[in-house]
């Protein structure tokens, strides 16, 4: 079993600047836990990339990108608190990693800003709003990420994506199949209040 990360170093003041780990965070962790044997025995990952930091204590090199400087600092601390090393990079999605990491990432995880909002909220100056505002259908950031998945993922790599039903998961799966020839499945889904959260998993 994977241990729940220690988060007691985080305070209420921190959560004014970063998205507090919530049901969606833990659902993504549960999905990774469910696949832990597959990941360890078949994928044998050496590079893991988390877009929008989540922290999965599975792999040795964990690049964590985030556009929020505060989140990147918290990532370093969270790694230390949990006796693993995380490598935070302050950037937008995977900018600055391509084409160097073309087809090199073995595990890619993304807990995107998925909440349906007006389009202009996606570029809000508030870091915390940016962490959840997804624009039309909550899809604007997700859709910008999909082509990167094809660029980044290695031959045996797996992409885990958290979505809600409003994001039209079937449409995302269809796009990944038709444009990039990715197979997909639903790993887990859970009702959290009124929100149905779903973990999608994509492989070549």
């Amino acid at each position, binding site marked *: 079993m994977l241990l729940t990360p220690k988060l007691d170093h985080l305070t209420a003041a921190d959560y004014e600047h970063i998205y507090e780990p919530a049901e969606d965070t833990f659902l993504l962790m549960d999905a990774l836990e469910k696949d832990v044997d597959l990941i360890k025995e078949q994928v044998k990952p050496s590079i893991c990339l988390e877009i929008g930091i989540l922290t999965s204590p599975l792999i040795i090199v964990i690049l964590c990108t985030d556009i929020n*400087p505060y989140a990147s600092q918290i990532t370093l601390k969270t790694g230390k608190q949990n006796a693993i*090393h995380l490598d935070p990079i*302050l*950037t937008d999605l995977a900018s600055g990693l*391509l084409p*160097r990491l073309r087809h090199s990432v073995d595990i890619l995880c993304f807990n995107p800003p998925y909440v349906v909002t007006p389009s202009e909220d996606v570029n809000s100056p508030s870091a915390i709003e940016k962490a959840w505002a997804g624009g039309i259908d909550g899809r604007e950031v997700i859709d910008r990420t999909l082509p990167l998945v094809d660029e980044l993922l290695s031959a045996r790599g797996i992409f885990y994506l958290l979505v809600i039903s409003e994001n039209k998961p079937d449409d995302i799966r269809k796009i990944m199949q038709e444009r990039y020839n990715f197979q997909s499945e639903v790993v887990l889904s859970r009702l959290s209040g009124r929100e149905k959260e779903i973990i999608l998993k994509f492989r070549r």
Partner: protein
Amino acid sequence: MRLITHNMLQCHVKGCNTNNFPLELSEIEYELQETEFNPQFLRNFVPKLEWDALVRTAMKLGITTLPDKLPDTPIQEIDEKFLKDLHRVLLETHIQQGRMTCPNCQHVYPIKDGIPNMLLNENEV
């Protein structure tokens, strides 16, 4: 930022597509932080490294333990001394402060409190 991360970063300024790797380090403060030695991980990782870039970057920091060329021996037979030196450079050398300059367009990416900042202004994307 560990040197393993530096080995994966490149300039992404709009239109800057050649000679944009590795980013050149300057005004660097770094420290060593010990971590568990995992030879199998290193063996698996060697093919994913840009070796010349790593050697050149380490030299910049005054670290001369890495050979100019990767050993000819098959990866599974690489000797432990080599792997230990590599472990030190790649996973235990942490850059805390400094600058990374693109050799092509001269854009500067700062490193602050151990975190590389790859964000660009809107007109540079």
